[in-house]
């Protein structure tokens, strides 16, 4: 064995150890979710990975037992109204993302390609606000929305998140890098600004738009503090808030909690695994803003 293969083997070994420690909690979550509540205690100081009963291991499939193992899922499903939470989360994230990308793309076009008095000063003001922590604006926002009777409404959940300085900044950087020739050609063909924006700028910026869409969607999807503050009643709760209340009710019933967590996590994981290439490319693109 030469040194190269040895180094390679060592690398694979380290990567595998890391991968196992990354995966172990997920495996633990999945296996706990099909255990019976009493089975989470490990007798005799061992690690108890597997549930005691898999239905394929017993020769006679006992219906009552069968319900008990997988029963955590229907129980969790019924109790936290998962479909409702998903619908709410998807609705908020989809509308919010669409609005934010749209307003950002419009403003970014003005900042990157059009000349108007005060442009640079205004852009600097946008950049400056990116430094302001969310908690500074959150409290007055809550007070304003309370006056507008927007507490506990979809408008209150979505509208304040529609306008993003970060999205504007990122798209502006991308638009600046687009070649001017195509724009000039469209101008000669008699296109107005709207036409140029729709038919030249946006089609050329698909990668940047896809990145912003992904991150904005993930931002809305995982958003926690604002929905917690703004939603009062159950129908409006998004997935993270619903899970939070689920924890409140089942402080120690971990088999059910893991089933609920599985339901919340697995669709997102699958979505990521099948689209991970785009995620990675997107992060690389967004990181270029820091260069």
């Amino acid at each position, binding site marked *: 064995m030469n040194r190269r293969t040895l180094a390679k083997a060592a690398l694979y070994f380290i990567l595998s150890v890391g991968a196992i420690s990354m995966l172990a909690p997920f495996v633990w979550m999945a296996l706990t979710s099909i255990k019976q509540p009493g089975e989470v205690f490990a007798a005799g100081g061992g690690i108890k990975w597997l549930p005691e009963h898999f239905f394929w291991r017993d020769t006679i499939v006992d219906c009552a037992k069968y319900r008990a193992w997988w029963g955590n899922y229907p129980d969790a499903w019924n109790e936290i109204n998962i479909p409702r939470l998903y619908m709410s989360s998807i609705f908020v994230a989809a509308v919010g993302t669409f609005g934010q990308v749209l307003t950002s793309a419009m403003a970014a076009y003005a900042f990157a390609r059009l000349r108007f008095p005060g442009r640079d000063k205004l852009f600097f003001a946008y950049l400056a606000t990116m430094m302001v922590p969310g908690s500074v604006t959150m409290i007055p926002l809550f007070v304003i929305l309370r006056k507008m009777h927007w507490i506990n409404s979809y408008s209150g959940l979505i509208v304040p998140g529609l306008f993003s300085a970060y999205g504007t900044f990122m798209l502006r950087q991308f638009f600046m890098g687009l070649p001017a020739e195509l724009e000039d050609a469209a101008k000669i063909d008699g296109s107005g600004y709207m036409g140029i924006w729709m038919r030249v700028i946006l089609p050329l910026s698909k990668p940047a738009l896809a990145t912003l869409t992904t991150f904005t969607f993930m931002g809305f999807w995982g958003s926690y503090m604002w929905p917690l503050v703004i939603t009062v009643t159950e129908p409006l709760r998004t997935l993270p808030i619903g899970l939070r209340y689920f924890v409140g009710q089942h402080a120690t019933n971990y088999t059910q909690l893991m089933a609920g967590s599985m339901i919340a*996590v697995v669709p997102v994981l699958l979505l990521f695994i099948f689209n991970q290439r785009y995620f990675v490319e997107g992060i690389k693109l967004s990181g270029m803003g820091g260069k």
Partner: protein
Amino acid sequence: MNNAKTKPVEKRTSARRRETLAAYGFLAPNFLGFLAFTSIPVIISLFMSFTHWNIFKSPAWVGFENFSSLLGFHHEDARLVPNDPFFWQYVYNTVYLMIGIPIGMMGSLLIALMMNQKLKGIVFFRTIYFLPAVCSGVALLILWKYLYNADIGLINQMIRSVGGALYSSPATGLMTTVLLAIFFGLTMIGCVALIMLLVMYICSRLGLQWKEGIYRVLLIAFGSGVFIAIGAYGGAVHSAILSFISTPPDWLGTVQWAKPALIVMGLWGGLGGYNMILYLAALQGVPSSYYEAAEIDGAGPWAKFWSVTWPMISPTTFFILVMSIIGGFQSGFMTANVMTGGGPAGSTTTIEYYLYQTAFEKFNMGYASTIAWVLFGVILILTLATWKLGGRVVTYE
């Protein structure tokens, strides 16, 4: 003649006007929203920080009272006592939890260096390492609360079973302790060496020269100190390990373990995440001709890393550092809210969680706004300081 001369100018000004109008049109939706949901709230927030305002009554102007009760000190039995001792404890917690930032950055860079090798199946590993980052959120916090559970958690089950097996007989137990001590000592020395290298690098960029000899002497002194300490306290360490294995701690329930436990959880979630991908992109952006040139000069892998890779990726390091500092001061709300409730004894309450409690549990909106502005001030000062220092250390092409 006259007419022909003015016409293009007129045309240009009208085109200008059209462009300005179009620009305002494109800006309007974003700008109005920005005004209503960012600019105006910022101004109101500043006003609120000078008031007492329980949301149900009208605000009462109190000048700087909030600021002095948050940041000020008073005399008590000839000692200086902070007016709001909780706030300082929570600042300490927040900064303590930020220890995870440099560790995480080092780890992310190491993983990115491994991911940058041309190996089969590397995409598979990259996907796995990224998994925690993609489904970050309440579900994972619930999972970790369970992992850290004193009786039924995976971590304590592992400590009990693996530790129990290793320490089942005195001989294997003693051997394990010795191996652990050596491993721990070497890790400590490695970390210190790495930090010294970094300090040397920054010093050299800032124009301060260190002698290589000083560095070696310091490292050797530190290393022998570590091993002497381990040797001297060996017996105590051994019995401490034994009692640790038989009764592993309730990680989130004890004051001294709660914060380290949260840091470890953060590392698990962050090592292979966004920062790693950013580092990977930066590594892939280093031109291979630079490495070839370094090889011609006779540089080994170590020298190549410090003279080519590290300076070339320094903008990314700087970017990640600034973003992490900004994020670090605003973090900890979700963890506290879902997992610990800020406890035990306030040991996992961060500034952000304190702010939330003040605003939305005690409805003390004025005081909460003051906390928000102090937080903003700290972030601003630290970011500017990092920026200033970074301008001298970071290499831009």
